[in-house]
């Protein structure tokens, strides 16, 4: 005999599963994932792809793709430790591990300056996006304020300029670049302090 209770429950379960699948897909293909994918690809040093053989390039790209799709989607669940096994902990902190892995891979290479800037910008964008989704109203507030991302980007740019500026050769423009870098760092610090004081007053 056909049971109406069972037949009524089945489509409901299907629609719930479909909605859950769509939500997971949306979560997996959201903005942080795309930024993470770009970060993973940038970390592999695209400028050096020409020097790689076909097989190595395929392996590198596949690894970056899998890493981004698996670990870049933001974990927005409460930080509850379900198990003390290191695999469970790694899954729980996969966003952190992903960002750290990208830093390690990028740091081992020797990319051109534009790629260094791209790495820094993408890493900052990924960290801000992760904060916005996983850190509650604090992260969302940070993203709404333009000063905090600007301060972080300014500091990163200042360090990059200082690191890459040819100031040790004795040329006059080297000192100018160094002075500009120091000014930029001071401006970033000032902007940061001003933003903080403004936030505390607000």
């Amino acid at each position, binding site marked *: 005999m056909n049971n109406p209770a069972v037949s009524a429950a089945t489509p409901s379960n299907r629609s719930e599963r479909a909605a859950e699948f769509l939500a997971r897909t949306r979560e997996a293909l959201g903005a942080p994932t795309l930024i993470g994918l770009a970060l993973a690809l940038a970390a592999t040093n695209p400028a050096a792809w020409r020097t790689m053989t076909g097989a190595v390039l395929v392996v590198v790209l596949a690894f970056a793709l899998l890493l981004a799709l698996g670990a870049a989607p933001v974990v927005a669940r*409460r930080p509850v430790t379900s198990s003390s096994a290191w695999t469970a902990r790694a899954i729980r902190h996969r966003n952190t591990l992903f960002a750290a892995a990208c830093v390690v891979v990028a*740091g081992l290479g020797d990319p051109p300056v534009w790629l260094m800037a791209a790495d820094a910008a993408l890493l*900052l964008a990924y960290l801000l996006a992760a904060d916005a989704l996983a850190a509650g109203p604090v992260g969302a507030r940070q993203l709404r304020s333009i000063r905090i991302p600007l301060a972080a980007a300014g500091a990163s740019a200042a360090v990059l300029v200082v690191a890459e500026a040819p100031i040790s050769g004795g040329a006059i423009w080297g000192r100018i670049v160094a002075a500009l870098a120091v000014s930029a760092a001071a401006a970033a610090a000032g902007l*940061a302090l001003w933003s903080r004081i403004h936030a505390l007053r607000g």
Partner: protein
Amino acid sequence: MPAEVSRALGGPQAALEPAEPPTQPTTGTRLAERALRLGTVAAVAAAVALATGHAWVLSLAAAPVVLIALAAPGSTRPTRAAARVTVTPQRCFEGEPITARIDLAFDGVVGWIDPGVFAGPGVELTDVRTEGPVLTLTFAARRWGRWSLGATDVDLHDAGGLTRRTVRADLGEVEIFPLPSDTELTPVPTRMPNRLGEHTARQSGEGVEFVGVRPFAWGDRQRRIHWPSTTRRGAIQINQYAAERAADTVVLLDAFGDVRDPATGRSTLDDSVRAAAGIARSYLRSHDRVGVVSAGGKLRWLHPGSGGTYLYRIVETILEVRRDLGFHVPQLDRVPPPALPNGALVYAVTPLADERILDVLRDLAERGNPVVVVEIPTGEPKVDPADQSAGLALRLWRLDRQALRFSLVERGMPVVAWDGSGQLDLALAPLLRTGVRGRAG
């Protein structure tokens, strides 16, 4: 499911089953996920820069360091936290909402209140709202019983989201009463105790229902003379009326086991308790005395009483039967006489799935109480249509059930079936035609 509810429960998968609260959380201040993420990235970048000698990698550390510096809470970080819980109502019926209000007290500035709810069995978290330092959790009562509402771990993040402090709030216990079945009919035994009530008895008395005439006797009131028959017979005839009595009813609840219908997933114990509550409510509305005896691992009973509030005492008595599932056979001889008055109508609500309840019914029949068996069907076992021997086994099973019912009817115990979905009145209606007879009746 709303996003905040899903987060509080730990994800959609965790919401499907009741969760046992984890061990007591650390009371001190801990780093939040955000601080761990930013700090790890900055530390790794600095280490890579030192190890490889690539100074530009320090630029990857600069951004998270600035974000941490801007979010540092300073002296505004909360250092003390406490929670006070108010649950309303603590007693409710199935389907009704239960609200737990958690008032948080803390010092410093809190940027984010992040609750984690470990809801107990029998309730479902439906809403989470945060207004200032007040956290309001709304539950829906799903299943009758005396349940723990669960516990809530509330994470208090500082203004920058870098550190958190957890405070646990125990939500206490709630009593969820079963929704009584929709019942209004009250079949009565043929012989009722000599107490004024609403049921028409077979004995003549001072009621309002006309049952016949009889010759005049000295002392009869003149206003009761039945003139048509007096004229016809040539002698004074007096109207006779039926007595109106109250019935004693005892609901015997079979808590020997809980069988789930393989097709619908319904629990026989749930339906039994709803039927028992419905029967008790309908008799209490008729101003009868109603008692309850639950036969399971532990014998619980409540002597018959009357009044609208007595229903709650009855229901509270049977709320614990889910914990009583065991292998002991109760001795009905040890039931105190007030629990089972002589001649009381007994409703045995049972799935007839356990041999021990048959012994109990046999004992009741030998005592002489009129007994009505309300069968809660367990559903037929699932069989493979292609399996011929399984089909034969199912046929044998059906015949066995029929034989069981027939043996009960032969002992003077009518059997009515109620599957928990329709009205119980439809099952009880045939009993109105003739009173329920016991050996004493």
